[in-house]
């Protein structure tokens, strides 16, 4: 697709903003650490206090990297789904993907308690959370897609996504009833969403999921552009619809599933970031949109995390609450201002 203007300036700005947000994210926290020592620690130099070095390298840095991975991955999965479903309101949360992931994790954590026994201990390793979560979101996405093939009305698909949310909540309630307090607490904390407390091993798994998903979305960007004209036009230009759809479904479930497993169900990033980006750079060309959405998602997530940390205080707010508090008004504002979402 030919684009008439140059986006170099926008990308330079986004990269600078990302760098600033990243430094800000690493610098601010419950313990005040001078900027000099932060740079020293990041570059492997001498740090005034060894505990600061530990805080930065083993807590804040993995958290900041997680924020980048989560923000970019969720935003990309939202973009892919909005194009696939030809619906500007699609996103991992609205379509019930996050609910599916929650259900997977709930069955794993709470079910281990309910069904008890030997498998309980085995199941709660890092990989099993990822698999349960990805599987949950994959099943929901397949169900949503099966519905899409039968029903042309996209509003119906969104309602079905909401229904999946309700079913999940109900199943979780039933499971909670039979679970003990410790497991329930583990699940509730997971559902608050959290970027912190990730081991470097966890960060590695998360980056494999995110990078795979993002790489595939770059590969299909040509077909995504064709899909902007609708399925029939895309077909007439040689796009193999079934194959592309399946690839997009797998990609979004890897992204949304993997991220939800590590960081919990984080709301609104997937829905709001592609919209804000589209309004701002006024193009639907995926070759421009994908990198822009990716950068913008990372920046927003880093900033949300800074807010959630309540710098210089001992408290940390659930990240999910912050993204919703920021995301929901943005979506409302976009709808009210434009009366329709640019797509």
């Amino acid at each position, binding site marked *: 697709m030919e684009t008439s203007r140059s986006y170099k300036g926008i990308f330079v700005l986004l990269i600078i903003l990302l760098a600033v947000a990243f430094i800000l994210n690493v610098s601010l926290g419950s313990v005040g650490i001078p900027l000099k020592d932060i740079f020293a620690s990041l570059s492997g130099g001498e740090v005034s206090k060894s505990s600061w070095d530990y805080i930065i390298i083993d807590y804040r840095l993995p958290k900041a990297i997680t924020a980048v991975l989560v923000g970019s991955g969720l935003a990309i999965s939202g973009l892919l789904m909005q194009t696939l479903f030809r619906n500007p309101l699609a996103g991992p949360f609205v379509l019930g993907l996050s609910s599916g992931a929650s259900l997977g994790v709930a069955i794993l954590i709470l079910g281990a308690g309910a069904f008890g026994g030997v498998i309980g201990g085995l199941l709660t390793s890092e990989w099993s959370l990822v698999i349960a979560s990805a599987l949950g979101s994959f099943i929901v996405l397949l169900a949503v897609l099966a519905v899409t093939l039968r029903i042309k009305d996209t509003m119906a698909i969104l309602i079905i996504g909401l229904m999946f949310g309700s079913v999940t909540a109900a199943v979780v309630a039933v499971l909670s009833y039979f679970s003990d307090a410790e497991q329930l607490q583990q699940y509730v904390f997971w559902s608050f969403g959290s970027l912190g407390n990730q081991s470097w091993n966890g960060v590695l798994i998360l980056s494999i999921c995110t990078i795979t998903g993002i790489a595939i979305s770059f590969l299909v960007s040509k077909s995504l552009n064709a899909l902007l004209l609708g399925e029939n036009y895309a077909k007439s230009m040689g796009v193999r619809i079934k194959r592309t759809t399946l690839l997009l479904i797998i990609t979004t479930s890897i992204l949304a599933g993997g991220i939800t497993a590590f960081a919990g169900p984080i709301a609104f990033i997937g829905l709001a970031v592609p919209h804000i980006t589209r309004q701002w750079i006024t193009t639907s060309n995926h070759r421009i949109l994908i990198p822009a959405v990716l950068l913008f998602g990372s920046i927003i997530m880093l900033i949300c995390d800074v807010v959630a940390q309540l710098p210089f205080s001992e408290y940390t707010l659930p990240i999910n609450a912050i993204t919703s508090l920021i995301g929901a008004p943005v979506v409302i504002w976009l709808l009210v201002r434009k009366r329709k979402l*640019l797509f």
Partner: protein
Amino acid sequence: MTSEKEHIILKADGLSIGYFSKKKIDVIAKEISFNFSEGTLISLVGANGIGKSTLLRTLSGMQKRIEGNVFIHNKQLETYHPIELATLLSVVLTEAPTSKNLSVLEFVSLGRQPHTNWMGNLSTTDREKVVWALTQTDTTALKQRSCFELSDGQMQRVAIARALAQDTSIILLDEPTTHLDLYHRANILKLLKRLTQETGKTVLFSTHEIDLAIQLSDQMILMTEKETLIDAPGQLIIKGHFNDLFPSDTIFFDSDTRRFGIKK
């Protein structure tokens, strides 16, 4: 010289079209056979619901045929790889693009997709084809506009430009003149006529503008309840087939003026 001119581009052989539903086949039209050569303008006419869109969808490979065969450049339609087919046949659909946020330039350049690499990068040739398509359809001035800003007539020209940019020897258009006033209808049909004459493309379009179609088309496909007739407009008039098109108690065809009239 005539042998090249007679080169068959689009061929149907005993074609039956319709829908496969649960356990039963709904045949809409059958025994359709034609041979269309290079540079032919063909109009497809018939009453509402007679199967014009179904025929176009079947010819473009979007819908399965029930019986018979479709040949594109003497090769059976189904044997083409989707991308190869997309370099030979393009479509202009009645549906508006899903995304209205695209600029005209972006929209038209999407037509180059079957020719570009996996990244969709446009080469110099691709850019030239896009410029050519915009010029042919007189839409160069619109290229920076977004699709949602365009009028129906402008959007139709842009949709044709996209098909032209795809650079295929066959273009199928589904009712390209709907929602347009008389001037814009004539304008679009003249554009199609010029394209067949100047570029040698084979253009097949469905339309309700039978009067205009009779004046401009080289061949016509006339779909009625009973049969599907294919001939030059003059021949169809002589044989009186236009009278079969609509119920005769309401509409009649005057073969002297080549126009339809309403029975009072």
